[in-house]
């Protein structure tokens, strides 16, 4: 793997941002972003704009894996190449929708956190653990309800677009699950790489987390616009998370009752 440029944000060394057009303003932390909890036209455009850049960022992470790990198994490289194409189409679909809603590139600040963390890692298993099994799987959880929110706010077109994107993401998480399990079974040292990757991601997330009461550039408290969602059990199962992994995630999110209810409904 070639050396790369880095940046330091709140004491954490991360990979330097990928190239962006001059119209974009790059934020390092949530307080440098603009977002609103409501669903005005401007807020809708910001949501799409932010998602568009996230898809671009994921395209870049997968593409960088193809360059940085030429000796990775060819079948894994094929999955990554396919992901590059998928994420690029997602970014383009969101850009098309942004323009239909009267928006433009660079209308709001963007952040490349997922790139900066994932692409800093020096192993392909570390990157797919963080990018696909964590960030993308987290998006999968959000996507279980976000399309419906768009429908509720009178935009079925965006809802359909997001639903199509969410379907693709399941495969990106699935192949990461497959390869992480396979590589760990083949070589126990890969377990250490997975653990190191997760630890690095947690350190970065903790360092960059907003302090209580901090507001973003729109004057909105960051905690009021932070997105979170319950674990999307159905899609995580489709993405081949094991039952044990899903149960552990549910416990981690304080959702043991959901585990119990799921089991009860499975038995009824």
């Amino acid at each position, binding site marked *: 793997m070639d050396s790369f440029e880095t940046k330091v944000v709140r004491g954490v060394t991360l990979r330097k941002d*990928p*190239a*962006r*057009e*001059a119209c974009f303003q790059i934020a390092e932390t949530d307080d440098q972003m603009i977002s609103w909890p409501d669903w005005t036209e401007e807020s809708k455009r910001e949501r799409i704009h932010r998602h568009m850049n996230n898809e*671009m960022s994921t*395209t*870049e992470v997968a*593409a*960088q894996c*193809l*360059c940085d790990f*030429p000796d990775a198994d*060819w079948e894994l*490289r*094929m999955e990554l*190449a*396919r992901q*590059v*194409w998928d*994420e*690029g*189409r997602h*970014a*383009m679909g969101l*850009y098309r929708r942004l323009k239909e809603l009267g928006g433009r*590139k660079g209308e709001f600040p963007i952040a490349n956190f997922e*790139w900066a963390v994932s*692409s800093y890692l020096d192993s392909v298993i570390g990157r797919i653990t963080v990018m696909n099994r964590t960030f993308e799987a987290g998006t999968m959880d959000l996507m279980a309800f976000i399309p419906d929110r768009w429908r509720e706010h009178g935009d079925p077109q965006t809802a359909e677009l997001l639903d199509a994107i969410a379907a693709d993401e399941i495969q990106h998480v699935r192949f990461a699950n497959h390869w992480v399990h396979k590589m760990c079974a083949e070589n126990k040292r890969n377990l250490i790489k997975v653990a190191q990757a997760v630890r690095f991601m947690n350190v970065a997330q903790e360092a960059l987390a907003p302090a209580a009461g901090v507001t973003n550039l729109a004057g909105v408290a960051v905690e009021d616009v932070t997105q979170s969602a319950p674990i999307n059990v159905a899609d995580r199962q489709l993405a081949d998370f094991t039952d044990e992994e899903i149960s552990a995630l549910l416990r981690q999110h304080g959702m043991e009752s959901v585990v119990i209810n799921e089991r009860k409904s499975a038995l009824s």
Partner: protein
Amino acid sequence: MNVKRRADTVGTLRFVSVFLMETLASWIPATPEMEVKILFSRQVWRMAQQADRLGRRARELRAPLHYSRPPQRDFLAAFKQLAAVTDTVDRIDAFHDIALSALAAEYKVYLTETDRLTDEPTVVICNQALEEIKIMQRERQEWGSEIPKARATDSGALKAVRQAIAATKEMVDRNEQAA
């Protein structure tokens, strides 16, 4: 063209396809323009699929699965020069115009030299690759609305790449040690 020679050419075409896939992939984070990144992302997947088909065919020609054989030294040097261009328009045209044209020429040479019946599985792969090359070259002109047009005259870097590739004689290295 005997089976060994077919395998060597298929392995070389695969090497070049993977090289181009990696080149495009490296340009995606390094190129600022969003639509250009997305254009490259489309071609990454196409080059990967071409490499995959060639790699599977190699095994049917007594070579290892996904056999990759480096091309002639001057050809590889010219392609490395191509991968090193930094300007956005140069990158777009280095791939769509120069690299794909060179690759298409090799596929066409192969089709004229092989036996179209006994080597029909490779012929199918070559024809599919040529069709995809046409699609990629058409996309360079027609896809998106923000892809910069080609310059009326080549930049110095692009001209040098064009000359370097034109100066190469043959892509496939027939030397036994190349494998």
